[in-house]
């Protein structure tokens, strides 16, 4: 007896193809960062419908983490859906407000940004979950500061599930915090990096040192330095310059060591 004959694949090839057509995409859409080397290591980019965590390397690097998250949101194609920036009163007090003239100078469109300011982190997490679920947003950035007990496995799992369901890019910025177990797809450590100076020793384009701390897909941690180009709205790999050792790109290298050296 030929078992294969009773399989729908062989018996009704048309049904099978129709079935395949309505199957959700096997691989979820990826958002490439733009920097070739980083995208190669990530096998194409970060999951667009997922939660990603960004830690600041040092206390003063929480701004860099927030900036990197925002620039990632701008990597998304233009659409009429907004980017929701959710922040607490405390965060706004410590790190200032978003400045739209600076945002447009970085190639973004400030009219897409909706600001949501909450009194505390509990409200912020709830607002973020609702925003992700509503499908009105293209990206949701939740900014937190300090080691918050509320941002735990449960709350991040809630955000991650909502993001996976609605296809929204959820970015969690954790300034001045120690990495804890969470349900995020990727976890990054972001530091400001010296830029390639412009003529006249003027500070250059936004430059970041990235360090992938954890990847749900199993990608090994690595470190890289990328620069944001506002004209193309993408990152590019940055050659190391100045008095820095080439070891920074090495997987084991700690961006922190560079500061101590």
């Amino acid at each position, binding site marked *: 007896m030929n078992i294969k004959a009773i399989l729908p694949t062989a018996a009704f090839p048309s049904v099978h193809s129709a079935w395949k057509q309505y199957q959700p995409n096997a691989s979820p859409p990826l958002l490439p960062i733009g920097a070739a080397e980083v995208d190669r290591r990530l096998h194409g980019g970060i999951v667009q419908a997922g939660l990603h965590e960004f830690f600041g390397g040092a206390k003063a690097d929480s701004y860099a983490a927030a900036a990197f998250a925002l*620039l990632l949101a701008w990597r998304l194609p233009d659409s009429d859906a907004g980017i929701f920036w959710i922040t607490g009163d405390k965060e706004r007090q410590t790190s200032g*407000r978003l400045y739209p003239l*600076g945002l447009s100078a970085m190639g973004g469109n400030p009219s897409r940004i909706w*600001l949501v*300011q909450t009194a505390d982190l509990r409200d912020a997490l709830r607002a973020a979950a609702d925003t992700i679920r509503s499908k009105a947003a293209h990206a949701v950035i939740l900014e937190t500061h300090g080691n918050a007990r509320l941002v735990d496995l449960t709350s991040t799992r809630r955000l991650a599930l909502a993001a996976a369901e609605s296809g929204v890019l959820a970015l969690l910025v954790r300034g001045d915090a120690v990495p804890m177990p969470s349900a995020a797809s990727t976890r990054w450590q972001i*530091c*400001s990096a010296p*830029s390639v100076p412009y003529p006249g020793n*003027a500070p250059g384009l*936004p430059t970041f040192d990235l360090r992938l701390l954890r990847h749900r897909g199993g990608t090994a941690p690595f470190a890289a330095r990328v620069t944001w180009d506002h004209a193309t709205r993408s990152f590019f790999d940055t050659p190391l310059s100045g008095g820095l050792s080439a070891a920074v790109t090495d997987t084991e290298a700690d961006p922190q060591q560079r500061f101590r050296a």
Partner: protein
Amino acid sequence: MVEKQRGAMRLAACDTAALALGLSAGMALADARARVPDLAVFDHDPAADIALLGWLADGCERYSPACMIDPPQGLLIDITGCTHHFGDDAGRLAKDLKQRLRRQGLTGQIALGATPDSARAKALYAKSAIHALPVEALDAGDKVHQALRRAGLKTLKDLACRPRKPFAARFGKATVVKLARLLEEEDTRITPRRHVPVITVTQNFAEPISRNNDVLDTIATLTHQAAAQLNDRSQGGRRFEVSLFRSDGHVARLAVDTGTPTRDSALLMRLIRERIDTLSDPLDPGFGYDRIQLSVPTADILLPSQAGLETKVDRSAQTAALIDRLSVRLGSDRVRYFAERNSHIPERAVVECAAQSGQPQKDWPQATEAGPPMRPFRLFETPQRVESLASIPDGPPRQFRWRKNLHHIVAYEGPERIAAEWWRRKAGHEPGKGGPTRDYYRVEDSEGRRFWLFRHGLYSETDAPIWYLHGLFA
């Protein structure tokens, strides 16, 4: 009740017992004490009186949406067309009001009249017929009253049958108009305390309800009715108010605002639930609600839209719904968008507007093709003071200390000189009075962090200028 009038303590108001003892308002407290040694006096508090009247007026909205406070002691209710709940009998309505007042321990003189003036005068002089009112009801000043009394005209009945023209010549037109209003010959409108809503739907209960679910179910029914009415008028509400009339006279109000006109009852119910959840003190039904009212104070045109065949997601509707929801929960000033303003001072150039108030500005300045961003991506509302060290007085900083950390500057660009808005200052156009100029520097420290610093004041303007950190670059 006593209050201080021209340096003397005088009685401002007295109750019926005091009146029976021969005391009256306006009497000096010392005289009153002499007559009645064990007189109980309290401070007169006109603000509390008005607050109580306001509370009563809220409760009286169960009878009519048009209620008005008539200071110092009156309430006017326009019950035209509002008596159907009482079998078209205004007397039964008055009786109901009197009962409710009595339950609160209040006594009131209730009078019905075809015009506000006649009703007020009848209540004030406790008469049921207009003709029995004294001429003082004209409220035209002591001289007029005295003149009328001297002429033997003591009540309105005496005035009503006389020709008006000589009367107008003697006492002025205003008095005649007042007389016509008192005699219910000419009607005026009252100015209601609250805007009469576009749509009002109500539900009365014979037995007060107090369970939360019952209340929510009733609100849902009312929302459906209001939505249907709005649909008939091709309108959508911008504000929805739920008034919960407690059987003891208290009225609780909940209001939700929407950014765009809507008549989607499911959405409204979500917003109202959200509103109830965020109340700082939960709804207290007490002995139960005997009337629930939903009103739509403001409505805009909302034409019916046809749903497309394809299941395309309507992003703008979703965004509006989300913004309404967050605004109801967090407060409407906490969900915002950016708008540009006409100023060259960085912190004044941009404002954040409540998301429900309008649409975000579309045309922002585009990024320059080449060169790094010249404006920071984060700005401090109040510039942060830093200790800075510059190599030459008018030059760029060499290092600065911010939040206890020392930053060594390795690259800088500047200064970008931004003058103060001298026209905002008194005599700002005169030299040296326009306010300090700011010299902005874009700097990068040895660890790769980029900041926006400025020196407040040139050395020609001030001796010891202060450095501030104003923004952070990515």
